[in-house]
């Protein structure tokens, strides 16, 4: 957990199974934090596969989720920018542990798809949303965004609205031009010149004799 130390008084009693797992993770360099009834252990990057494997063998045999958090704009945050968290639970459903690892931009993580097949989509989603590369992943492609879409939308510096959405190969969608196109002020992307529904004409078109004899015939 980041600097959220102010509330992480570890005075709650951990369940026996959780405590046993935590005891095995601490020698790997694990830092334990608890908040409400949630236990999270931050381990160094080089021990992450081992840590997940230890947790799996000591009872937390199912992986619920792998997700990323970008702490770029978190107030008072120090240390590496991203956190990847592994949400693990036991098959009974009543025990849960979060194993966390901090990574910086450009750093990669080893994959855990060798331990859990379910991690396939989860790691692909983290890669898609945060750009964290998982080495050794069998099929590391974007999961949810279009394949020609540039950027990682869940990063905190990813622009929100009113900014062009970039696609690779030079295509981009400019919201201002798009909206201008919708009200007819600018042809924009739609190429629409404005005006009412199909078949309607401007006032000029309804002048006397318009369209019959050209412009001249409209004069008295």
């Amino acid at each position, binding site marked *: 957990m980041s600097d959220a130390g102010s509330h992480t008084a570890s005075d709650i009693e951990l369940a026996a199974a959780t405590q046993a797992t935590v005891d095995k993770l601490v020698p790997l360099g694990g830092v334990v934090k608890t908040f409400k009834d949630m236990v999270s252990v931050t381990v160094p990057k080089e021990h992450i596969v081992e840590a997940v494997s230890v947790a799996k063998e000591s009872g937390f045999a199912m992986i619920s989720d792998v997700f990323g958090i970008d702490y770029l704009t978190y107030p008072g945050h120090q240390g590496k920018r991203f956190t990847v968290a592994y949400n693990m639970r036991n098959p009974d459903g009543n025990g849960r542990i979060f194993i966390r690892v901090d990574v910086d931009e450009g750093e990669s993580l080893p994959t855990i798809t060798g331990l859990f*097949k379910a991690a396939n989509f989860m790691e692909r989603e983290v890669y898609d949303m945060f750009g964290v590369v998982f080495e050794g992943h069998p099929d590391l492609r974007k999961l949810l965004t279009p394949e020609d879409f540039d950027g990682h939308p869940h990063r905190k510096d990813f622009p929100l609205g009113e900014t062009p959405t970039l696609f690779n190969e030079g295509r981009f969608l400019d919201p201002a031009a798009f909206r201008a196109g919708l009200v007819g002020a600018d042809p924009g992307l739609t190429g629409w010149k404005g005006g009412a529904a199909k078949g309607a004409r401007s006032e000029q078109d309804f002048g006397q004799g318009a369209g019959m004899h050209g412009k001249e015939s409209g004069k008295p």
Partner: protein
Amino acid sequence: MSARDLGHAATVTREEQHGEFETRYMRINVGPQHPSTHGVLRLVVDLDGEEIVGIKPQIGYLHTGFEKTMENRTYQQGVTYANRMDYLHGFAHDLAYVLSVEKLMDARVPERAQRIRVALNELNRIASHLVFIGTGLLDMGALTPFFYTMREREMLLDIFELVCGVRMNFGYFRVGGLYRDVPDEFFPAVDQFLEMFPKMIVQYERLFAKNDIFVNRLKNVGVLSRETALDWGLTGPSLRASGVPLDFRKAAPYGGYEDYDFDVPTYDAGDALSRMLIRVDEMRESMKIVRQAVDRMEPGPIRDPDRRISLPPRSELEDSMEAVIFHFKLVTEGFHPPRGEVYVATESARGELGYYIVSDGGSMPYRVKVRVPSLINLQSLEPACLGGLFADMIVNIASLDPIMGDVDK
């Protein structure tokens, strides 16, 4: 990496065409616009004759960035987005979201509000399973059950409309309680439904569960053993059909579920038939919970009286300056949960559903991560389909019950 390296191309590559003459597998593309894919699911399937040797789901056609949107709305506004992900079981998303925020805020939800939440959530689970059964059988060519299940679902949607004014995208739960109390007509409507519905379940069972054609079509199709299901992260009724009795309503009760007496049905076969039949059993259990919740409902408040979370009652606004200030602050900027990170796992009609919320002390969540069941369950399509017939793929999709809004977020 180009699209071709990434396997997006639905045709064989040039190397395969010219380097190696023999054409062993046929790669075909199913969807995204296909009536039996329950939305916009695209599958790239490698076929050896009729047998499936490779299957890759291509998803994201409905990706709308709900998580990012919720990070830029106040906590209370997030409820509006939550239920739009899984549009068939919206109350589950509402409940999971408000439970996480309530855990962050240490909110105390009144008992009546909890009972109403549980009753609505279970009624919604029945509605979701009815769609599952109807459309699932529709995919297999059985048209009749669809009309039967839709008829009963209509009754449920009428109840939801009675309670919160809309039929699908509810937004009825609030952090700390509910938007308003249920109307008096709610109870007779639920009674009527609970009285009528057991007969309907018998009717469904006569239609398909005891129908030899149906049973033989689904038996031993898409078998997921206990180990496979656990390895691929399957949750929900589909996992319980593989013999794992994991139900978060029982295993880690939340939102008052510990008060109710119900069973967790399981099947051992792990095939498509079990995944179909277990939903029928679950509807019976849900009815039990609704009955208990409605019977035990006592009059009382439906919102946490804590002024940090709940709007003051309308009557106080006219003579209390403080109430006006709280009202103004809550409406304009919302409440500020303390810093921290929470997660509550709940059981939706599809599996484990939870919201991981990171708070930085502001009035908007710093990060919202939804653990959606459909996305993770969809991976199990691969072990279920591999080695099976192409015609069974449709059955497998239907029996895993993915909702594409839930998958793509």
